[in-house]
């Protein structure tokens, strides 16, 4: 079986503190419930949830959708938004967890990365250093979801051109967002969002991407 690794990176500090975190949990649960209705997702999606404020933390390693239960997301105790460190951490996890094709091993689909943050990075230098590394990881798709009014879209643009923004942070909004993520993960080419039309190329089983 080929796995489709899906990484979800969630900022818990800054604009994400408080209500957004609570809403995200509701949204994640709705997303997973929706993905469970998709037979392809059920047989291929492996998901990992990483949160970060000052430090990144993997709340859930790559876990098969079938066995997955959304973990509790804690409010951060320390301040600081180390987006650079978090992205570096994601790269490390991808190296550790994503299986590449070898003569003896079946490779995973290209991983997907969803980032939910306000776009700010307190560790500017590291952030800039890690950008080329992220590009080298061959994510099938990176989608950044900017949350709150005071977001740094320019920073997010450095990571990906697929950016959506959420103006409100209630659970209804997040539910909608994650519903879309589930569609993006399972079905593919759909458009959404406040910014541009997004054409996500998630790889259903028959997709051959061009080397």
């Amino acid at each position: 079986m080929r796995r489709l690794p899906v990484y979800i990176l969630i900022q818990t500090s800054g604009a994400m503190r408080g209500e957004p975190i609570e809403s995200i949990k509701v949204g994640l649960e709705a997303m997973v419930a929706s993905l469970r209705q998709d037979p392809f997702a059920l047989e291929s999606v492996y998901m990992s949830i990483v949160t970060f404020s000052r430090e990144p933390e993997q709340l859930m390693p790559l876990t098969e959708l079938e066995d997955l239960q959304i973990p509790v997301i804690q409010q951060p105790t320390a301040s600081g938004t180390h987006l650079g460190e978090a992205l570096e951490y994601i790269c490390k996890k991808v190296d550790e967890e994503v299986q590449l094709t070898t003569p003896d091993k079946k490779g995973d689909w290209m991983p997907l990365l969803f980032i939910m943050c306000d776009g700010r990075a307190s560790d500017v230098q590291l952030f800039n250093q890690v950008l080329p590394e992220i590009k080298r990881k061959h994510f099938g798709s990176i989608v950044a979801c900017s949350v709150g009014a005071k977001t740094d879209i320019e920073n997010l643009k450095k990571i990906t051109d697929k950016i959506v923004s959420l103006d409100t942070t209630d659970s209804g909004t997040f539910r909608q967002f994650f519903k879309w993520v589930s569609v993006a993960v399972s079905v593919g080419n759909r458009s959404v969002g406040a910014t541009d039309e997004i054409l996500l190329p998630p790889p259903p089983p028959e997709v051959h991407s061009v080397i």
Partner: protein
Amino acid sequence: MDVAKYLSSIDIPAENDEEAKKFLSEKEAAIKESILKHWEEYSLTNPQPDKVIAVETPAIPLVKEAPNQPEEEKNETIIANPVSVITGIQNSTPPQPAILLETKQNDAFDRQIKSKTIIMPNGKANVEYKYLFRIEELGLTDIADYWFEGFNKTGLSFNFSTNEITGVPIIAGDHKIKLKIKRKDWIEGKPIFEREITLIINPDPKTLWKNIPTPNEIEYFKPDCAKSFIRVKAVTNVLGFGKNARKDIVAASQRGRSHAQEGKPRDDDFALKYLKEFDWYIITVADGAGSAKSSRKGSEIACNTVMDVCENLIRVKHTEFERLIKEFSNDKTGEKRKKMGDSLYHIIGTSVFKAVKNIEEEAKLKGKPLKDFSTTLIVSVCKKFKFGWFVGAFWVGDGGIGIYNKETQFLKVLGESDGGEFAGQTRFLTMPEITQPTELYRRLRFDIVDDFTALILMTDGVTDPKFETDANLMKVEKWNELWKDLSKEVDFSDDNEASADQLLKWLDFWSPGNHDDRTIAILF
């Protein structure tokens, strides 16, 4: 106690102990009631500090204090439901002090239950579920009894004697299960605690797949499945007795479930031909890229072009081609090999080159990028000679082609799969480098082999589930498994027309996560 002294101090003229005792015994009930009333009023505004601490420290077993408070255990006036127990302090009627204490204990206990992480592993519809629930692992003390509510609809049940949740879940979804707990010394009227746990039952993926027919009106419509059988009749031998069976070709192609789910067309294709006059077989399969919009046309053009061009060239060149094959059979090295290869290159190479040109033309005609027609391609031309079978092949992309002999355990895979780092990555016929002469030549394979059980051409919809890795494609054990599996459903006896239907049915095999279009062609 000096009762008389006390009474006189509050201006009651009881002269001696005798009189005081008499007064007390006569008025005992009224006095007791009065004192109790005042005591209660007093204790409400002055809670006893040591007990409050005990309540707020969940580490100390709460109910252990109960023996010090015998009255509260017997108190029948306790508020009946747990909600009002929890919110007892806000009640309009001031609660009794003993109740107040218990309220706090219950409150703490309730918080404790709610804060525990209680996980039941996810289940799967129609698959046996078993989970040992150990309530003691929650670290809750003084539990007298517990049970679950909400299992009845799920098909699961809780067995109290074994502490197991077992059964076969019938309904998929997020089920809300209630864990109910009675604390020690529970009697009617005391609260029953409750904790909601979500039990996730995954649907059986097999029940989720839909089979939506491809709409007829789409561009480049292609039927959702296809099959073909070419019978090559047995010949009577020279002396007029006995029959020599000759190999037939069977092929089938089935739209993948991932396409069926969305009503999308099949991208795979194949073509077969037997040239009766020359006794040549031509077989080809192609897999249109799932990510390319018009790849189903790409695979179709590729198969048909290769078929036509190979046929024509064999018709024209067969005398010389077969002479070179014969010479090659005597000397498989050096010059003879080179000449033989050049001749095969001329036939297959030309057909492949022409296929690309035809696809380019179609793209230009429709004003679409060439990439939209991306397809893989596997071609084979073969013929039986006195000295053995000649098999020539060309392969670009994933999938696989091999000559397999069940008896001798001979296996020859005719090329290499083009895979990338990640799943789904491969090379396509339409990539510019493929039609470079050296690249074309590099991808040619040919050999003369003894008789074989089967020559099999497959797209990755078959090789992915059946071989999984490139290394496995080279292992004869895996081909044995494949052949065994095929033979269960397909009757490979000579001239069996029904084998096409049988093969198409076989293609519907179940393999989790492998739901690509599947195409297989077999010379047997």
